[in-house]
């Protein structure tokens, strides 16, 4: 019971600090999970993070895994709910105001200003992700080939991902 309460407290606080998602609060998350609460070693934490990267879903999935390791299925549900709820409440409040003023000149100006910043930010996320996944030459080749297929063909994205995983398993890439 106290483990569930601790999970809720830790991830509830991280929720409102996680600008850009879990990656922004990863160092603080590791400090809480490893150093403060001694739920697992730093090595275990890194393994869970890599696993969460390979799974589908928002980049918050490492939180569900930590909750699961600490307190099983209830732990996963409590940790995920705690990290989602505060940010969701804030988004609900702010996006309502944002939509109500959709025709206001100030909102249009701000929206035009956010557009290039958003584009730059997504490019930066992609670059950082590529840097951490293109660990050797063959992985870098996968990045280049897959990017070309995603941009210039109409192939279903899951097909491209599955082909990459199969090539890796067969020893052709990765």
């Amino acid at each position: 019971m106290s483990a569930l309460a601790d999970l809720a407290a830790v991830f509830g606080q991280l929720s409102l600090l996680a600008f850009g998602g879990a990656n922004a609060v990863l160092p603080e998350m590791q400090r809480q999970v490893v150093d403060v609460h001694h739920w697992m070693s730093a090595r275990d934490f890194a393994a869970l993070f890599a696993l969460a990267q390979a799974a589908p879903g928002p980049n918050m999935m490492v939180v569900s895994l930590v909750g699961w390791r600490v307190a099983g299925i209830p732990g996963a549900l409590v940790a995920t709910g705690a990290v989602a709820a505060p940010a969701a409440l804030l988004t609900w409040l702010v996006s309502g105001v944002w939509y109500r003023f959709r025709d206001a000149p100030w909102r249009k100006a701000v929206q035009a200003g956010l557009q290039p910043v958003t584009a730059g930010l997504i490019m930066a996320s992609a670059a950082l992700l590529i840097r951490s996944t293109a660990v050797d030459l063959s992985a870098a080749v996968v990045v280049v080939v897959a990017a070309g297929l995603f941009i210039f063909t109409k192939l279903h994205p899951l097909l491209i991902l599955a082909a990459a995983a199969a090539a890796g398993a067969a020893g052709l890439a990765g």
Partner: protein
Amino acid sequence: MSQTRPDPGVFDLFAGFFIVGICGFGGVLPWARRMIVEQRRWLTPAEFTGMLGLCQFLPGGNIMNVTVALGSRFRGVPGAVAALLGLMTAPVAIVIGLGVLYDRYADLPPVRRAFVALSAAAAAYLLANAWKIAAPLRGRPLAIAIAAATFVAIAIVRLPLQLALPGLALASTALLWRFRT
């Protein structure tokens, strides 16, 4: 909202984001944009980028915030809850299943190599998506310069987001307003 625009119900919101959650390898943003803009046309490309822009300035996962903003716009609080549950249900179940499998099979070389290649392809998918989101900037040198400055600040200088974003957003809004055409 125009009458030609689809008007998703609570179940549509759950179902749409459920698929996004299942597909979302390497991050859900590309899949969310594909579902919301290209397949179901709940938002125009410009509306999606606007909503995403707002959500990036709020704490929490960007797409988790998009589900809340989009769900509540169409169907209020029930819509927001349905969209968020739709997004999260499958990934939480899958990641726990992967945790169990990983504990058992992580040491097998083919499994490890498949994970490396899958992560690399997923990163490429995010890059392709960034390409699409940047498309409206073409032919606008000032907007491209602002996007480039954002990229440098976050990816190269590695400024903390909460520090860099307010300044970039204010500067961008002021510059584009001053030099609007």
